[in-house]
């Protein structure tokens, strides 16, 4: 899909793919909602929705082309499974908090899962949302953090070092579970294990460009489209997984 559309962002899509697939196929129930705060992983979301039968093959083929509802970041044009257009980082967690609070006030069931990148913890608004969720004990929100360690122009540890995000989230009052973000069983277990009395954050250690050796942990795959040869190699490797 990314090859055919000649677009980048493949690295951050591959780091999130198992998280999104596992969440949608094994964890989410009818009343639940999903917010992709790291909007640049839109491709992985579209593929996940396609795998659920929520998007058609024909829709998927329009990715990144003219007259599409599947833009490079989720667009606000009425796909029911995508409540908000999100591209700018630091918006998703506040939106998820609002959706969850709305459910609470209206007495409606269901949870709101929000997938964040590690880079977007640079954004102050993400921390605003975190303190809001913790203060109100909004257990209807579940955070998933794709901790791939690379952001726009360098490793997260070198750009704005987060230290241990898991420890920080605990300090802010969340229940934190750490998992390998490429192990579906571990992801499922972390999300389905009984909740404590605090909102849950699953911090998933991931590899940017996961599954394709020449992409793994390489910052350029935040941006670059694939050549035909790279695409062939990537498909070959991924099919062996």
């Amino acid at each position: 899909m990314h090859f055919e559309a000649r677009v980048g962002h493949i690295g951050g899509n591959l780091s999130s793919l198992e998280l999104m697939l596992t969440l949608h196929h094994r964890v989410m129930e009818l009343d639940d909602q999903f917010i992709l705060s790291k909007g640049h992983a839109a491709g992985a979301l579209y593929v996940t929705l396609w795998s659920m039968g929520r998007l058609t093959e024909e829709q998927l083929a329009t990715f990144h082309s003219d007259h599409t509802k599947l833009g490079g970041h989720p667009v606000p044009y009425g796909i029911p499974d995508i409540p908000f257009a999100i591209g700018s980082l630091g918006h998703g967690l506040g939106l998820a908090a609002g959706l969850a609070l709305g459910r609470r006030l209206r007495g409606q069931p269901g949870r709101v899962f929000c997938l964040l990148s590690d880079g977007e913890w640079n954004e102050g608004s993400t921390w605003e949302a975190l303190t809001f969720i913790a203060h109100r004990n909004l257990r209807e929100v579940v955070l998933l953090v794709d901790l791939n360690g690379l952001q726009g122009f360098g490793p997260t540890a070198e750009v704005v070092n987060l230290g241990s995000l898991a420890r920080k989230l605990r300090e802010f009052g969340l229940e934190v579970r750490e998992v390998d973000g490429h192990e579906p069983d571990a992801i499922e277990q972390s999300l389905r294990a009984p909740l404590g009395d605090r909102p849950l954050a699953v911090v998933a250690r991931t590899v940017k460009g996961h599954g394709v050796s020449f992409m793994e942990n390489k910052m350029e795959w935040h941006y670059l489209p694939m050549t035909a040869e790279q695409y062939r190699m990537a498909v070959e490797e991924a099919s062996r997984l």
Partner: protein
Amino acid sequence: MRAILAKTLVAQAQNSDFVFLTGDLGFMALEPLRDVAKERFINAGIAEQNMVSVAAGLAHAGLRPWVYSIAPFIYARAFEQIRNDVCLHNLPVFLVGNGGGYAYGVMGPTHHAIEDYGTLLGLPNLTVYVPAFAADVPPAISRLMTAARPAYLRLGRDEKPENFTVPPYAPWRKLLSGEGATILLVGPLAGGILAAAQPLPKSQRPNLWVLSELPVMATEIPATFIADLEQSGHLIVVEEHVAQGSAGAALAHALLCAQKPPRRFTHRFACGYPSGYAGSQLYHRQECGLDPSSILKLLSIAP
């Protein structure tokens, strides 16, 4: 106007879709609303970006959230959240900015809102409501709730002259008739200018109009306003907002497009801080020629 806002919303607080968020402001004004709305009154803390995103989420969940703060802390601090989370999705989030224009006076420029509606009107789906008098607040609230779209309500201090009966609320209203220039006013400064113009002899007395909803829609300009313009030949627009993105600029554009330009056009707008000193709202208005006596001087100019 805060008191009447609170009073009006108290009456709405039992609606199943009511919810009110404040950015930790409203002391000595919003307590009655807090007491009635209970868990639907949310102090979101001093975190306006998150407050607007939360409001968008609430609106998506079927509620109609109000979001309150001092004006610049809403439209400037949380601009991207208003743009992406609220306006792109045409959600019924009602932003309330207290202290339009120079209303916060000597509290200083950080608290002023002199580019608020120009900034916001570039966004899709949003309507701006600028009550001129406290009596306008309840009907403006009624209209924005009926519209159920993104809204920004710009509040100020009521400056209604004593013994003046405010005509029923409408986006365009005529407050005074005469044979002088045609003046269009935006916001509470209308009160002082109205008081100054009332005693003038009919030959000098302006046709005084007040505009309370933006953007200026060419199709909604009343025919009687156009008739006043044609008769007087001189249009004066006065607003506590910078020229960029102003009602005056939008009206001039609309009149030009309609091939109905006035023979003479004068625009009085917020000019920032020319002296570099802080002062009261009146002080800043005087610096910009927005005060009643400055406007009266314009009336002696022949068209």
